[in-house]
């Protein structure tokens, strides 16, 4: 069987105490952090800090970088002073929408996860065994299929992202149009009030004018 095993890292599954400490400290940090997305690309660190400082004390803001063309998510990790503050904010935001740097699209907040961070310590002393499989191996074909599947899945995800963006755009235009129409209506009413048309109509029809 042509199986070339490359390495086997330390087989101890127990972490040494300092690493353990690091890990628990990191866990604490994760609990205090909020993952916020649906941010406008114009939102800066300061803006975000100010926005969330209303609810508590922001200790750190880290934007999640976007490297790939297919990805257009704007997200940030905001660390608060305490786990309680973080949880409160997440609860508040799901009740009433918070908008940052523009309206009306609200931002979305959820609990941060370990994997969102760039610099988390090792989970545990992991055993990394890597195999090199050669074409004659019976599983080779299936493995190839799995690899192709990865590519297919990535394409699917990219497509879904596109669809979502298109949908966002649609909603945006829809709301924009509705808003403009409403605005026109108000303008009309305003104009009518200002130039006395309304008063004349009231007099004509003999009705009362409710002051709004």
């Amino acid at each position, binding site marked *: 069987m042509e199986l070339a095993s490359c*390495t086997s890292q330390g087989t101890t599954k127990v972490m040494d105490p300092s690493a353990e400490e690091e890990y628990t400290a990191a866990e604490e940090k994760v609990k205090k952090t909020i*993952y916020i*997305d*649906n941010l*406008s690309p114009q939102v800066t660190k300061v803006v975000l800090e*100010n*926005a969330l400082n*209303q609810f508590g004390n922001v200790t750190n803001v880290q934007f999640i*970088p976007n*490297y*790939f*063309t*297919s*990805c*257009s998510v*704007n997200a940030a990790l905001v660390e608060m002073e305490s786990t309680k503050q973080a949880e409160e904010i997440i609860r508040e935001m799901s009740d*009433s*929408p*918070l*908008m*940052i*740097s*523009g*309206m*009306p*699209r609200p931002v979305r907040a*959820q609990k941060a996860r370990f994997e*969102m961070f*760039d610099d988390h310590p*090792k989970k545990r002393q*992991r055993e*990394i*065994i*890597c195999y*090199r*499989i050669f*074409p004659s191996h*019976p*599983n*080779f074909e*299936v493995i190839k*299929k*799995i*690899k192709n599947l*990865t*590519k297919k*899945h*990535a394409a*699917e*995800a990219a497509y*879904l992202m596109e669809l979502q963006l298109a*949908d*966002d*755009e649609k*909603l945006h235009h829809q*709301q924009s149009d509705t*808003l403009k129409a409403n605005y026109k209506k*108000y*303008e009309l009413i*305003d104009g009518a009030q200002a130039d006395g048309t309304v008063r004349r109509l009231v007099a004509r029809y003999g009705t009362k004018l409710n002051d709004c």
Partner: protein
Amino acid sequence: MVAVARDGVTAVVGSGGGGRAAVCGIGFHSDISLMSMHEEEENENVSGDIEFRWGRKGRVGAKNPNIQYYESFTYDGVEHFLYDSVYLWCGDQQMPCVVKIVEMYETPRLKKMMKVVWYFHPAEVQKWLRGVHHLNNELFLASGEGNGLYNFNPLETICGKCNVVCTSKDERNPKASMEELKMSDYVFYRTFDVETCRLSEKFPDKIAGVEVGHFFNPKPKGKPEVTGKSNLPSKCETDNKSTPASSDTHHSKKRKLQDFEVDKKRSIEADNQSITLKKRPKLDTSEWFKKLPWEDRIRKAHQAGSLVLLENLYHSFTPSEVEETVLDAFNIKVSAKMIQWSAYSSPHNGQALVIFNSKDEADFAISELNTRCLIIGGARIVVGSRPSLKEPGNHHPSKYFGHIAIDAVKRKQLMDMKNAVSTAHHAQPNTITFDMAMEWRARQKKWELCWDALYKNQAEEIASLKARLKGSALLGKEK
């Protein structure tokens, strides 16, 4: 006479022998900011917290023999020598000041002080420059007599070494080489007389009582060559190439780096002998050189063709684990960065961007991953490819919808719909804003469900394929 004012620092018209200096500095220890009479205990404290050690002794004070002068000291692991140029933190100024240490001593009360001569930034003496042209990274050496020439400062105000090269054509000044110029932080070839407030290209014989030779470039010594013995220096080279700061040959490293390297080499050779199965020794040669931020490195690597995207990793991988895996699998040292998990990331596909040292190595790795298979932990099959990155220069902002603005909104009725404000806003339930926000919320929820469904689907596909793999020895538990 116009005094050159530096915020937070009063210039001392010194009369030799331990003058008092106002402290300028955010020091490293909060106690430092109040250097008053009773500081002995606090001084002890400071040296206890951050490692400090005097170097070679010099003379004792002429007027006060209780003052001991020295030729160097080590603070927080960095050694500073007499006549070094360093950065000094001057209180509330945004830019640190550059100074040259001309004396370093310890007072009888164990205060560690130094006498520094100032370099002026052109911006600081703008008033007297009157349109004289200067270079971007040029400094003026203080000269003459009076306020602003030198100061006595506590050692803790130092915030880093500064590479200042003298480009004066004065015959007493050794000419700086091209490489030294390239590596310099600042240059100077003019002096600013603090008494007459005038620039001059002439250097007097003494400045602040110190021979002018100490201000010029040091006389060149023979630089020890780093001979490449083990494979380590070659790895240094390859790392070297990926940082433009040291894009010249590795022979012209800064002197202190060379000494450092020679020592490291010896200790590392011993480690290299040991078996790789043991815990890997911490040879991170890439940390020896100043690293660019990730954005730039990734872009450079992408242009060079040495950037590879690894997929199907575990999300809980750390960059060092990725690097180790690559090292084990292909025997190539790389730098890796995990792609941070976002709300839309696939839970099965942990990704990492890996910077190889050359296009060839990247090609090799990708072809190996394609023709053969690399399985991690028995359950994840690694896929490698060249990623398509966002164009950085092309700053058209990524699409974002949902922020609407109305022109000419000065109507009272429409106070809700203000123009896009740079603050946060909580919508009240009876406004149009609230309704619209709720629409967005509903959308978000809908898409969340879509993504969940997609990934669930994908998980099933993966599972069904994996079930077809024969031989359970290959598949460990999904971690």
